[in-house]
């Protein structure tokens, strides 16, 4: 059995830190703002209905607490969500895809193409209106989330999907040789 034990030389390796990242499309902020508006309107509607139906809840103190919590949740969602939006950036290299997310907790995901099982392009009704799409990347990792890149222009998402599928098929044909 041949066996080697060479020291790791990381100096000549391509560096993730040297890559310039591209932000997701600015229109995606509009998509998430519309989604929040719909969500919080529905929640507000439900809360108001409960307060109208229940006489016990029609107390100034309870109303103030619930309104305060509601405003706090809305504000924190908007502030954190907007911060997170600005941090969402991606980069495509020859052999992998890099994706930055998070504002308070920042994450950098590095996914080699040869580990991808498949990928899916999704387009919600609001995204479609702005010509955007979401690309989900699936690996065989058993824990942790699958990587989902929101706010890509539809054409770019499709191109990326094609590129990834080609990479996966090329790998399978190599294995079969």
């Amino acid at each position, binding site marked *: 059995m041949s*066996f080697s*034990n060479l020291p790791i030389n990381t100096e000549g390796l391509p560096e993730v830190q040297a890559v310039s990242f591209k932000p997701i499309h600015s229109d995606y902020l509009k998509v998430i703002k519309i989604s929040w508006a719909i969500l919080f309107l529905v929640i507000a509607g439900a809360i108001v209905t409960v307060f109208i139906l229940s006489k016990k809840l029609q107390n100034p103190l309870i109303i103030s607490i619930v309104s305060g919590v509601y405003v706090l949740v809305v504000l924190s969602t908007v502030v954190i969500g907007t911060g997170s939006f600005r941090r969402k950036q991606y980069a495509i290299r020859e052999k992998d895809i890099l994706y930055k997310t998070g504002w308070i907790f920042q994450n950098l995901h*590095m996914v*080699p193409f040869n580990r991808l099982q498949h990928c899916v392009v999704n387009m919600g009704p609001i995204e479609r209106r702005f010509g955007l799409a979401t690309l989900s990347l699936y*690996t065989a990792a058993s824990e942790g989330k699958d990587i989902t890149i929101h706010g890509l222009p539809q054409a770019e998402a499709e191109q990326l999907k094609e590129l990834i599928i080609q990479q996966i098929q090329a790998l399978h044909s190599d294995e079969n040789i």
Partner: protein
Amino acid sequence: MKTFETPQRQSPLALVMMFFKIFRTVITVIWPILIGLLVGGKKENPGLKWLIAGAALLLFVLARTVLDYLYFRFSIKDGQLIVRKGFFYKTAITVPLERIQAVHVEQSFLHSVTLTHKLIIDTAGKEGAEVTIYAIPSSDAIALRTLILDRVDIRTAETAEPETKSTTKQVSKLDLLGLLKLSLSANHIETITVVLAFLMGRYEDVKPLLANTPLLKDVVSYGETMKYTWQLITTLFIIVTIITIVISCVRMFLRFYNYTVRMDRKGYYIRWGLLQVRQKMIPFRRIQMIRWRSNFIRRLIGLALLNLKVSGTDEAKKKVLIELPITDVDQIRQIVPVYQPLLPAETGATGQKIHRSYAFRKTLFITLPILMVVAGLLALAWQWYALLVFIWLPYSLGLQLLYCRNFRFWATPEGLQLYKSTWGKGEAILNWKNIQYVQIRRSIYQRKNELATLLLHTAGGQFEIPYMKYDHALAISNYALFRTESTQETWM
């Protein structure tokens, strides 16, 4: 050898096995209703009521069993395992034989009497597709397993060095003394927590039964009125301790009795069982990561539990929990080399540390909030004495500081290894080729202090190094990507 090209049914014995399985499933769902029927309702014609309910239940289970049996057929055609099942909800499973991960053979007492075996065929894929053949003649079971495993291991056989013999070698066998040591050194606190959680979870369900059964009713009413003196508490504590140790021993005996690990060039063959003999075959290529750990007592007496982290779905992982009891360090040296020839820690490379701020952050953001919640709940009964729970805080901080001081990780061309210890200890090794993707996570504090948490995701779990230097995390990430992208070596 039989080719299984024609779709075939299971052995008629499968009817019995399937009946009990379906019966058990139905009972698990409806048992609270049965208790309700037993203790509640009007007492008119209780015998007739039970007879009708029992007959209906039996008829349903019987019909379901017969239909499931008749509509289950399996075959192997064009290199694919084809299973068609279901009467109302029809399912057709087609699995290329190369995608099958493992074939598990089990034989209960009933199987051994009727010369049959149960086969569980574990397949790849996120949907948790798994095929269970409840009973087929032993000769067919062996033929089917050989047929599948021959295809499963084509890639392994093509790349492996040719061997003169395909005989299996025994890696470890747990004798009675080892089993006893393992039982006595088990985590009894975990056992009592599981037992208490189960009893508390079920108490509300069986409360009506307790209130209506004469003897149990007296015990409950006595328990509510008795005075809890120190003598009584001590006696109860001793009784609970003895019961816990007995339960731990029973659990360990059921789990590890006659535990034997053998290996050949294809994989590990694990065999165990007290009431029911079970066998599992784990191909080497399916191993994604290896971990071993000892609690304080096991560390003192040289025992450990070794986990083979294998690829598969969550559901499959629960069923194929591959935990090998280790009674001698040399056994680890025999098991690990098939995954990684040399442990990174043994290459002479310097072990890297993590930052000690991890201990303070974990205490501040995890231990302290938990203690505050516990103190808040206890304050309802103990008033100011509830603050005593905060004595745990300095102990927890000390433990976390010890964890940081002892934590080491190694990154070498062979792979990654980590070592952690406080009272007990644990180690893990990861081969670069098994990495699925890399993640670097940083909080505001970590960003200020040039720290990061590195997560290496594999198909068998994640390998986490917390609070390491950011530039080291980047260097390891760059190297991990280089190793996974520069070769077409398959990860499974």
